[in-house]
Structure formats: C-alpha cells, structure tokens
C-alpha cells in the first residue's frame, strides 16, 4: 500500500468514526433515554435550557457533560467493550469494582466506614431506647455479610475486616443480643448476578436465628422449592459482560401459603408472601414480600403461639422474614430506610413481649451513604 492510500484511509476512517457517532449523539440529544435498565438508574438529561447563569456557574455545562456520557448511542455495547477490555486485555481483576470469581459477580469492598457503623448503632439504639426498653422485649441483631467477605476469606481478595465490623456493632448495640450467622453462609448461597442471598440456601440461617430467639423453626417440617424464572440481578447489567442469568427460587409450604400479608401503605388490600407479578418487573427479587415496603404485617393463622416478631430489615430480610413467620403468630417487617422510625414504630404498637430482630446487610450499614439511605 503506498503512503498516499494509507493516509487517505486513515483520514477517512478517523473522520467517518467521529462523524458517525457525532450524528448519533445529535440523535441522542433529541431522543434521550430516561433510564438505563441494565444499570438500574436514571440517565442524566441534557439541560432543558442553557442560561448565562448556568454557564458561568458551570451547572449547565456539568449537566451537558453528564448527559453526553449517559445518552451516548449504543451505551450497552460500549460498556461491554470496556468490561471485556479491562478483564481480558488489561488483565484487571475489577471493572467498576466488580470482580468475577467462579461465575459469581462480586463488588470488591474493603473499606470499613466506622462513622457509618456508629450512625447505624445510634439509629438502632434510638429505636431501642424510645420503644423497646423496659417493655419485656427480646432484642437481637444480626449482620449479613456481603459477598465480598467470602471473596476475601476464600480467594484472598481485599475485603472489609468483618471481625472489627462485628465488634464495633456489638459495642454499639450492647443492649441487644448478637446472632452470628457468618458461619452459616457461603458464597454459593448468594445469587451469582445479584447482591442477595437465595432463599433456598438460607434455611440454616433462618433456623439459627429462630433457635437463638427460642422459637420453633419450620414446624411444618418441609418446604416446596419453586424455580420461577431467569433472574437478572443487579450485577447482571452493571457487569456489562452478559453472564448467564440466575434462577429465582422461593420456598413454600402449607403454613406459608396460608399467611396473609398486610401492607400499611394500603391496609384495605392484602398481599401474597410471594408476589409473582413482580417476577417480570425490573427487579425480580421484589417477588419476596413485594419488595420495598415501609411496613408489612404477616399474619400466620396456623401459628401455635401468640408471639409476635418485629424485623427491622433491608431487602435481604424480605426473603428471610417468611421463613421466620412460620414460628410466630404475627411478624412485622419494617424498613426504616423509607420512613422515620418515629412515624413507623407507633404503627406497630407498644412492642411489649415482642421479639425484635435488627438484621441488616453489611453493605447497607457499612456505607458512606448510610445517612442518605436511612430516614
């Protein structure tokens, strides 16, 4: 090839590449996407109007920059190129902090946010002091390790110092009894493409917690396992590498099927324990107790006891609470991430003679965003 032809070809491909994507960017400008399904987040939008003030203080320019990135054409295609280049060419173990071990997608997290843990302790103690103290309640707390804990333990990846994390929380929640579930879990108990555990893999966890609270576990003595559908967890889209999806699984039996769930956002309607309508939604994990709900009450008509349990929880608790519900007459499932405990707790009652369990994933209480997450 003579130099002249080569120069023309290089000039042409460079110009064509820029021109093609410039045209696509203009298309994206006039036809912006609202959300990224894969990343489960809203996409930045171009400023509706650009003002002189917005230019001078750079807010409009900043918005334009963010939107030009988020609205770039073929976004998922490019995210896939980057992820594959990071893992397979540069040999990096992480892409956007996500690593893959035996097909498990794990977010590498090794920072201990002591301020966040102290804030969590303070938040839970506020509830204890105001609503539980002196009410003959049995108060427990437990911490669900993130998948990165196992990556650290088994594969030498950086991970949070869980011994220290638990010690801090024990110190913070000295009035509560700690239930250790760390040894009842392993990496394969979690979905490969999601942060959450799989309900069929946490029977031993539920048993341990029930026993620690002095309740019968699984009085019906069996579970039917239902494999519902493909489950594209939160890491599926974030990883951008198109891994095989998981299968979402739930457990049922006669007692669980008879339970009735009341939603305090609309008490006139009841919900099923497993809401199969949610399976085809954005997050199939919302199958469990219909996902994000401020306060639910599970009534167990076949209970052999009058005991009530209050579970303060995050999304992990949605799949755990049904397994605990078998042993109780009533289980309240409360999420103080969406409503202040000062509004929420009075709706439960006065807590007398109730069992109370605070169970949170480490990724929620050990987070720089803790104060933004909780009301």
């Amino acid at each position, binding site marked *: 090839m003579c130099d002249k032809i080569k120069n023309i070809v290089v000039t*042409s491909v460079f110009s064509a590449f*820029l021109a093609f994507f410039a045209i696509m960017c203009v298309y994206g400008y006039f036809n912006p996407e609202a959300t990224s399904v894969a990343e489960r987040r809203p996409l930045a939008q171009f400023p509706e109007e650009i003002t002189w003030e917005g230019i001078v203080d750079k807010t409009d320019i900043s918005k334009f920059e963010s939107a030009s990135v988020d609205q770039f054409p073929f976004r998922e295609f*490019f995210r*896939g*190129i980057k992820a594959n280049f990071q893992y397979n060419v*540069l*040999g990096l173990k992480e892409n956007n902090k996500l690593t893959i071990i035996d097909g498990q997608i794990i977010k590498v997290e090794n920072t201990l946010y002591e301020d966040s843990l102290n804030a969590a302790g303070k938040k839970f103690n506020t509830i204890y002091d105001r609503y539980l103290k002196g009410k003959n309640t049995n108060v427990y707390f437990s911490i669900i390790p993130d998948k990165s804990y196992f990556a650290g333990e088994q594969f030498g990846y*950086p991970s949070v110092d869980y011994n220290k994390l638990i010690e801090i929380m024990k110190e913070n929640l000295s009035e509560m009894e700690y239930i250790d579930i760390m040894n009842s879990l392993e990496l394969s108990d979690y979905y490969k493409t999601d942060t959450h555990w799989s309900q069929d893999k946490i029977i031993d966890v539920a048993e341990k917690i029930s026993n620690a609270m002095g309740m019968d576990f699984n009085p019906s003595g069996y579970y039917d396992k239902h494999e519902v559908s493909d489950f594209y967890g939160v890491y599926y889209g974030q990883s*951008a590498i198109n891994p095989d999806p998981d299968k979402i699984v739930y457990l049922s039996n006669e007692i669980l099927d008879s339970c009735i769930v009341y939603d305090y956002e609309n008490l006139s309607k009841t919900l099923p324990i497993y809401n199969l309508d949610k399976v085809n939604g954005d997050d199939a994990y919302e199958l469990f107790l219909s996902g994000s709900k401020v306060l639910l009450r599970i009534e167990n008509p076949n209970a052999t006891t009058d005991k009530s349990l209050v579970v303060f929880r995050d999304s992990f608790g949605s799949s755990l609470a049904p397994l605990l519900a078998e042993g109780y007459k009533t289980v309240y499932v409360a999420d103080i991430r969406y409503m202040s405990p000062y509004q929420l707790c009075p709706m439960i009652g006065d807590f007398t003679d109730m069992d109370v369990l605070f169970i949170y994933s480490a990724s929620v209480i050990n987070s720089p965003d803790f104060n933004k997450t909780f009301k």
Partner: protein
Amino acid sequence: MLFSSISFLFYFLVGVLAVYFIMPFKIKIFKKSNGEYYYFEAKNFVLLIASLFFYFYGEPIYTILMVSTILVNYIAGLFVDKFRGTVWSKVALWVSVIISLGSLGFFKYADFFITNINAIAHSEIKLLSLALPIGISFYTFQILSYTIDVYRGEAKVQKSFIRLATYVSLFPQLIAGPIVRYTTVEAELSERKHTFSNFSYGATRFVIGLSKKVLIADTLGGLARTLMGLDEKTVVMYWIYAIAVSFQLYFDFSGYSDMAIGLGRIFGFQFLENFNYPFISKSVAEFWRRWHMSLGTWFRDYVYIPLGGNRVSKFRWIFNTLAVWFLTGFWHGADWTFIFWGLLFAALLMLEKFFLGNILKKIPAVFSHIYVVFIILISFVLFSANGMSGAISDIGGMFGAGGIPFWSETTGYYLLSYGFVLIFALIGSTPVVKNTVLKIKSFKTGKLIIDILEPIFVVAMLLIVTSYFVDGSFSPFLYFRF
C-alpha cells in the same frame, strides 16, 4: 473541556474540523490603495473562535483574563518593535513581563504567600481562595516567548491580532502544553499545508495519546488512589504506588502532548516534541533533556542563559541552577512539595556535574538506569504528595518507616491485578514498540502489514477509548492544575 471526553471528541472536534476544512485559508475582502488585496484569514479565525469557545466552556469568566493578556502582549509587541533601540522598547517588554507574570502570580500564588506570611508572622490575612485559571502557566509562558523574542529580534512582530490570538489560544496546546514558542509556529500562522499525510499522522498521534491517557494513565491513577485509601499499608504497596504515580504522570502528560501534537498536525501546525522516553535515561541531567522538553528549554532560554548559564563562576552557577530549579518546581504548583521537588533536581544536577556524572559514565548502564529510576520514583512521590507531611509519610513508607509490614495479601492482590498494566506501561515508556514498528516497516512486506494495521488500530483504539468515556468517570488531566 477535556480531550478525553465525549463532548470534545464527538461534539466540539467534529464541528471544528467540519467548519475548518470547509473554509478557505484566506478570503479576499477588498483591494487596498496600493493594489494589494486585504485578506480575511478564515481558517485562523475559525481556530481562534473555536479555541476561545474551548476555553470558555471550561473557564467562562477567565476567558476575559486570557483575552486581556493576549491584548496587552499584542500591544506590547507592537511597542517593542516600534521603539526598538530606545528605552521605550525595554519598558514595553517589562510591562508585558510584569503584567503576564503578575497575573500568573496573583491567581496561582497569592494564597501560597498569604498562608506562609500568616504562618511566619502569626497574622490572619484572609485567603483569596481564587480558582486557578486553567492553563494560565502555559499560555503565560507562550506569550512571554513572543514578546521576549520580538525584543531580542529573534521573532518578527505580529501585526495581526487574529494571528497572535490564534497562536496563544490554539486549543490543542492551550491548557496543558507543550509550551509552543511563537517562533515554532510563526510561519505556519500565515501559511500552512493541509494534507492527507498531515491529517493521517495527526489522527494516529492523537489516538495514541488518547489511549495513553485513558487506558494507562487513568487506570494507574485509579490504582494509586486505591492504594492510598487502604487502611493497611505495606512497604511493597508504597513502591507499587511510586511506580503507579510515576507512570501515571508520564502517560498522562506525554499522552496530552501526543494529542496536542496530533491535533496541531491535523490543522497544519508542527509542534516540537515534548517527551523523548525519559525513563530510559542514565542520568538526571539526561532525564530532564527528555522530560517536558518545552518547559526545560523555556527556562534554559529565558531564565538560565540570561542569568549567565554555565559560563560563570562555580558559585554563580550554583546560584543559577538553584534559581532555575526553584522556579521550575514553583511553576508546577504553589506548594512547598513542588519547590522541594525542583530543588531536589537542582541538588542532583549539581552532584552529577561535580562528581557523580563521571561515575555514572563508567559504571554498567544497568546501574545508572537503576539510579535514575530510583530518583524518579522518589521525586514523583514527592510531587504527588499531599503536602510536605504527606511526602515524608509516603517516602518514609517506601523504606518501612512506622514499622509497617513488608507485604500483605492485599498488596499481592493489587500487584497481581494491575501487573499487566504495569508491564504495558513499562514497555510503553521505552522506545521498544516504536523501534519494533520501524524495524518491521523497513521490510516491504512489513510496511504493507503496518500500513494495513494502522487504520484498524485507529478505529479499534477509538472504540475502546470511547467505551471508557461511556462507562467512565470524570478524570481531568493532571497538568491542568499547572
């Protein structure tokens, strides 16, 4: 606006290239009384407007400062030329120097001096907390090269404001160098060639620079930040950090220079090289002949030589060296770390001059390389440190200060994870790839293969780099802060 951004690549650059190449170089406006035509230099005008917009996009308010500086120096240049041989010529030069350096000093160093005065005098003078105008250190030095060279008679005065403003504000090198001397582009401002050869070379060079910045510098920058954020640090971790920040600085800055040179070539300008594989140097003196060459030669020609250079007494030479390297360090930032960084090199250059240089020439090359690499790693840790206490802590960590462990599992994880990138960076910091390509091109078949691969390489790297923009986060060039 960042070169490594979607807004630059797919909005700004595409628009500028389209308009620039549609426009003729000159447009006839009217016939003057002497029969000559007055031409409107359309391409220069497009570049000037584009460059002002480029700067305005990042620094809306400080655009006024830059344009004012250009205007003052344009007038100063005219006065220097008009009153050549009289005292007024010198006055005009001093006005240019004082206003340009005064502006740089005020915006960049005011808070540094206030902080130090407060510390020494226990006063409580309020800090000005001014934002540093992007690229002020670069464009100030560029415009001073114009007025000083006009005063010295080494450059002709530029009577066209558009040409001078185009030179100073030219967006490819405006905010992070290289420091392009006026004399380098003087002829090209009035006439330059636009060829497929120039465009092709420029595009490839631009893509190489972009890839160096995005794929290597930013990746290693991420490693450096992660390591510094770890709770448990080890000796080996500090050394990995030192290597990461050194390569980050090199690939960030040389990548930017590659992009500037490439863009310049697309628009018909031939900027001088700014880096020449500095990490292969066998002495500190050689390192500085290969690192940020445009800054080194600027200080040599406009500070060191006017001070007498090395044709002076030993003590005067020591003073000259200290002065130049103090200023070199201070130019990089208003912090004592940068001053000590500059003085460290002054000390090493003096050591090499007096006795170490001869030793370095006699010992096997591998040992002189090790010496340079060792010095460079330490110096870049100092350069990147958060204040002097941070520098002492980081450099101390490299030697086990504080009783930190030598190694940990986490250190091993990051070394393993970033091992390939560090090896790519090591290879990329030497002329191995360039020499291999040249060797292959020396054969007919080899040249054919390289010629076929070049456009494929350009598109592939553009795709990969774009994927990093789409999935990445904001990562400004390190030298923007200078």
